[in-house]
């Protein structure tokens, strides 16, 4: 197993470049399906009458529904050295609710790339920031996420 750095100039050049946008109409069915899959029966995601009587004023998307609203392709593409990938962590910040009927545009920017030795060999960490904007141009949320790529374990 090689311990040499796999970070390329191509990868470094991709830092700070915003992706193509992903454009996502927000549908009630997708919210209900997501809430059911995570096992969260809050009325805010499932019951329009009860949700309308709450401060939210209607059905909203669960906090991690954002995961579904993928940005478009990276403009600056770079080759990944490893096939195996793990999700390292996530930080969401919320500024406004996402409602049924909204259209959310998401873009992602590579913020940093670094390496650390670990249990699975020399691991490649990529820190990305995704921005979610609604049809009114309002920033509704951001996510900073860490992806970890590592060498094949055979």
């Amino acid at each position: 197993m090689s311990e040499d750095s796999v970070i390329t100039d191509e990868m470094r050049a991709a830092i700070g470049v915003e992706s193509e946008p992903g454009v996502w109409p927000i549908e009630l069915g997708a919210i209900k399906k997501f809430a059911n899959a995570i096992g969260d029966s809050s009325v805010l995601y499932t019951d329009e009458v009860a949700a309308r009587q709450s401060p939210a004023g209607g059905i909203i998307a669960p906090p991690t529904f954002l995961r579904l609203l993928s940005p478009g392709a990276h403009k600056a593409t770079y080759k990944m050295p490893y096939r195996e990938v793990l999700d390292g962590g996530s930080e969401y910040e919320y500024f406004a609710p996402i409602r049924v009927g909204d259209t959310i545009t998401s873009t992602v920017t590579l913020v940093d790339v670094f390496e650390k030795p670990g249990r699975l060999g020399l691991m490649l960490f990529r820190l990305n920031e995704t921005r979610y904007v609604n049809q009114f141009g309002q920033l509704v949320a951001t996510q900073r996420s860490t992806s970890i790529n590592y060498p094949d374990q055979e």
Partner: protein
Amino acid sequence: MPYFNDVSVGDALPELKKQATTAQLVMYAGASNDYNQIHYDAEVAARAGHKSVIIHGALKNAWLAQLVTDWIGTTGTLAKISVTYRGIDYPNDPITCKGKVTGKRSDEGRNLVDCEIWLENGEGNVTTPGTATVELPTR
């Protein structure tokens, strides 16, 4: 549903128990559009060094968010949630999401409460620590 005035540092959040079946992982894969085979194909998971298919990190994130939103109800607002996937979790293992209040502050007229949150596996080990900030109404 808690009011800002009534919350104290050290308060525990009501625990949230979860136990994923492999069927739930497939439902989550579909609902979240995440088709990484490590979550539903045992051979792929074994090749990556795991004893079985593994729970999506983002599903654990969803559970920790639910821990907080169940606590604050429909009158509070989740402002921020941060999680680190430190350990792998597996379907059928009984999982408990826990949290406690670590701070209270007012910022530009918003009454914010900071929490430490974490997810424990069936052996009581913390696999997924994190933090959350919520905005609560006042009495």
